[in-house]
């Protein structure tokens, strides 16, 4: 155990050294503060999970509980007029209730924690989605609350560290938890109230998740059902990395903090070194395996799990440890170097040199944004600027904030963001502007005072109306249609649906919307959903897919069903729709030239950095696009474009 902490401490040190060399402004107080601030939610979960895992259990439901508490919090504040603190109190009660459900099943019914919390993981998230219809989210919280979220949460974290540290390491309750982890029946026969103790750790877990939810909402300014997605696995990683045995009976709070720090530093450092965020995911996995493997390889008869003696390290062990830490540092440095060569971005930027533009999509994996990136890179080449293309790999508003924070620390020349979540990003964008960095949004906007300009391909209203009009045209003015959307909580799609419904109500009284089904951005799911739709709603003649994978998925389903009377339309990349357009299943799709959007954004950002694009300017020249009109603060690419059989082959994205 000590050995692993030692190893981990060394690794952390190595990380810090390497990143202070290759990352810009890594070793600054501001950056350190930022790192601490963004790790609080994860840290709270990791602290309570340490206690759970020490007893030999596990809790996969903590991330989902965050989502549930966040939406309850939002509801009570917005719709019921509770004060922020009263709403928080109720959210905490919800957390305790969820923890109690876990506790009942695990401690009293003696069910395996993995399965129970797998069930509650689904249940809590499902309740959150059900309550909000997946759609609703809450924002606009009072300034005092948001101020708490820009630093106050560190104090909360500190209290939590103290609490769990004292609980696990100095109280008899903690001793009992370790005993339970080593041998549950042994603990029972020793008079330890096992069911009560287990209930306690699961209740604390729920409580922690609830507090983390409140912190999350304060931090990013928005309460939505997807809060905390994926956090449970990250928290478990931090705990296990920190030396806690997944089987129970071993582990320390200090170790967990070390594990947390190692992950946080890794993610932050990689970002500041302008390396793609996937690398941090891969490296975290490698670290996790590596630290356990090394511990196992050097295993000797273990010391007792609970002792009060001094650290006892022999000389030979020190030598091996040093060698391992050195090797680890070399591996990280080496992989950085290799990656730096294969990715066309640069780390440090001396003053007065090249312009650096930080450009962020909503998610990196979406083919739509991939096609935008191609145009952006083309523009960057033409202009001779450095382009940092980074963002979350999944829809994660908190991650977007972190990336921007990193860019601010790094000191980029301009920032351009496609916003996942308006409320949360606006705070950090305002901060960037306050530091003198021009901020643009593209594809999806933030609050107007948080950015200088918005590069707009088309308004949500324009998109929604065009989609509805196309559908109406295909239906011939009357009939039924269905919508296959992305995820239920995606802001963009929900905006478009709003305008589709509006247009439908205003202009097409004889058309009826049969159903809206989610595809979770999974082509295979869109396929399955469309198959079902065709059977449950046989009168549907048009399926409108409004997420990139939804159109090809729906089209394939329609094609395979042999229903020649049904057509598919929607919003997707021409390349994905092409085969179906030629095959006749897809009548048309609505989009815009995504490459041009990326291209224009980089030109606009470059102009903003140089000072050419500022308030009051009516047009800019954007390379091969020529003169681009600016209306107010919107840089307009143009109207939505309709792709169909007659023109789709001209496009390559």
């Amino acid at each position, binding site marked *: 155990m000590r050995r692993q902490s030692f190893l981990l401490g060394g690794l952390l040190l190595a990380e810090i050294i390497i990143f202070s060399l290759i990352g810009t402004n890594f070793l600054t107080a501001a950056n350190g503060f930022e790192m601490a601030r963004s790790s609080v939610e994860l840290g709270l979960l990791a602290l309570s999970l340490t206690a759970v895992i020490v007893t030999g259990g596990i809790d996969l439901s903590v991330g989902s509980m965050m989502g549930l508490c966040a939406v309850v919090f939002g509801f009570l504040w917005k719709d019921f007029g509770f004060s922020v603190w009263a709403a928080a109190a109720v959210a905490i009660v919800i957390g305790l209730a969820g923890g109690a459900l876990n506790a009942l099943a695990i401690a009293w019914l003696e069910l395996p924690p993995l399965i129970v919390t797998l069930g509650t993981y689904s249940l809590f998230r499902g309740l959150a989605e059900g309550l909000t219809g997946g759609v609703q989210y809450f924002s606009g919280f009072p300034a005092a609350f948001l101020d708490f979220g820009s630093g106050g949460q560190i104090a909360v974290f500190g209290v939590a560290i103290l609490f769990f540290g004292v609980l696990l390491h*100095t*109280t*008899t*309750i*903690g*001793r*009992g938890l*370790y*005993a339970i982890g*080593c*041998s549950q*029946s*042994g*603990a*029972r*026969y*020793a*008079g*330890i*109230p096992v069911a009560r103790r287990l209930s306690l750790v699961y209740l604390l877990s729920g409580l922690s998740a609830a507090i983390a939810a409140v912190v999350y909402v304060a931090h990013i300014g928005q309460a939505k059902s997807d809060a905390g997605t994926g956090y449970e696995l990250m928290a478990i990683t931090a705990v296990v990395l920190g030396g806690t045995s997944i089987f129970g*009976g071993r582990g320390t709070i200090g170790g967990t903090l070390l594990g947390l720090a190692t992950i946080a530093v890794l993610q932050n450092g990689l970002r500041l070194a302008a390396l793609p965020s996937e690398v941090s995911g891969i490296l975290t996995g490698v670290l996790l395996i590596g630290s356990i493997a090394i511990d196992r390889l050097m295993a000797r*008869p*273990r*010391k*007792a*799990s*609970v*002792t*009060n*003696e001094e650290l006892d390290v022999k000389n030979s062990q020190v030598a091996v440890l040093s060698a391992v830490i050195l090797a680890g540092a070399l591996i990280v440095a080496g992989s950085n170097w290799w990656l730096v060569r294969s990715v066309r971005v640069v780390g440090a930027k001396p003053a007065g040199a090249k312009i650096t533009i930080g450009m962020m999509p909503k998610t990196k994996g979406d083919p739509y944004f991939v096609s935008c990136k191609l145009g952006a890179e083309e523009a960057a080449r033409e202009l001779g600027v450095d382009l940092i293309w980074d963002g979350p790999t999944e829809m994660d508003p908190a991650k977007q904030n972190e990336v921007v924070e990193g860019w601010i620390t790094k000191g980029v020349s301009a920032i351009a963001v496609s916003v996942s979540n308006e409320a949360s990003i606006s705070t950090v964008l305002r901060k960037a502007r306050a530091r003198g960095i021009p901020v643009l949004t593209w594809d999806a906007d933030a609050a107007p005072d948080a950015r200088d300009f918005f590069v707009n391909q088309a308004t949500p209203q324009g998109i929604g109306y065009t989609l509805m009009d196309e559908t109406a045209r295909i239906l011939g003015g009357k009939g039924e249609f269905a919508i296959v959307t992305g995820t239920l909580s995606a802001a963009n799609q929900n905006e478009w649906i709003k305008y589709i419904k509006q247009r439908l109500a205003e202009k097409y009284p004889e058309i009826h919307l049969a159903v809206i089904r989610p595809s979770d951005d999974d082509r295979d799911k869109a396929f399955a959903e469309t198959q079902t739709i065709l059977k449950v709603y046989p009168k549907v003649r048009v399926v409108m897919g409004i997420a990139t994978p939804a159109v090809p998925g729906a089209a394939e389903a329609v094609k395979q069903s042999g229903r020649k009377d049904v057509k598919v339309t929607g919003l997707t990349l021409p390349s994905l729709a092409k085969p179906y357009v030629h095959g006749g299943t897809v009548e048309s799709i609505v989009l815009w030239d995504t490459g041009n959007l990326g291209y224009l954004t980089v030109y606009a950002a470059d102009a903003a950095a140089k000072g050419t694009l500022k308030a009051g300017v009516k047009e800019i020249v954007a390379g091969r696009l020529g003169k681009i009109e600016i209306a107010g603060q919107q840089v307009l690419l143009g109207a939505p474009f309709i792709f169909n059989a007659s023109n789709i082959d001209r496009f390559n994205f």
Partner: protein
Amino acid sequence: MLLEARGIRKSYGGVAALRQASLELRVGEVHAIVGENGAGKSTLIKILTGAVIADEGEIRLDGVPVVGHSPLKARSLGIVAIYQQPALFPDLTVAENIALASETGGAWRILDWKKRRLEAREVLDQIGARIDPECAVSRLSMAEQQLVEIARALRAKAKVLILDEPTASLTEQEALRLFEIIRDLRGRGVGLVYISHRLDELFQIADRVTVLRDGTVIGTEEMASIDRAKMIRMMVGRELSSVFPKVDVPIGEIALETEGLTLRCGEIVGMAGMVGSGRTEFAEELFGLRGGRTVQIRGRECHINSPSRAIELGIAYVPEDRRRNGLIMEMAIPANVGLASLKKLFLSPKAERAVAEDYRTRLQVKAGSMTDPVKTLSGGNQQKVSLARWLATNPKVLILDEPTQGIDVGAKAEIHQQMCELAKAGMAILMISSELPEVLGMSDRIAVMHEGKIVRVVPRSEATQEIILALAIGSRAA
């Protein structure tokens, strides 16, 4: 000569477990091995079965040296061991368990379940075990599981059968049947190695005995030419005045009263009965581990529904299974000793260590260091730590469940000594034991359980082995 081991040496990290151990097993012989815990018996067995490789020395089977030993090789050579803890697969059926031990062949072999069932049935009948081959092993009792293990070994056509404390969980009847089986096997030419602490048994069943002490073979004798006292002397290296140093102690007031039993201060009540008669269940009920029980403590009626409540009321229970229930194997001595006495909110490591040290001296616990996990201790010392934990709670009523099971003679005597001193100090002790001599030697009164009920409480003066046994079996002749 069937099996020969010569000059076996084995050390674990500088500590010698066996030095110059030798064993000779003839065809058709029952050869007993005795020795205190830590004498090296289990290490020798592990070397014979290939689970552990000796540092030096040679093993020969039928005169042929065994090279490259391993559990798999042992199985193929026909060397089978049956340990105290059944090594069966709890989720699989009896038939499958029996089959797995004797079937050979690759992973792609196709199985014949009908054949498996028939063969299992056949071998179970051979030992008179009325067990359904299709039953999952987890549903069988400890005794039944051991019978399955023996059936398994029979099926595997063992040449050498090593039995480690085989009668530990068997009733007298089952033990006698086991001896019959052993004699039958012996007649067929199987060589049996028999390890037991129940020295009297050996006179019934063994031909020769080898005594181990501190990793060395002290000597091998014919059973006919040795007596109990000499065996003990060889094992311990000293004369033991008496195994049961029971002295009479003035009996005080009633400490605990419950349905069928009264315990008084200073009294040792032994609890006898067949395996499965419900003695452990009775004790666990008194301790609040199963459901609730209402008892009278010093006149007041109390309901015990959890171990912590029992501890509050001054009741302590040292369970039978040390490894699973009696101790936390991964924790060190001080943590284990203090585990039942965690009254305050905060730990006090210094006080804990002091208490542990105190009991270490008092109970003469031999341990490497106070920071080692207790799993490194020998059985006897583990039992002492287990006892220390409960003594630290200052109980008025102490329940001991098989306190000296699987423990060497020396440690046994020490524990009995402790019990007498505790009784003298006014503690009421309930001692569950399957060893009749121990029950008769240590108890003031003997409660006999049969099928879940206490049928009679016999005062020491009236008790004989026959009477107790008869009551335990349930015959009316008592």
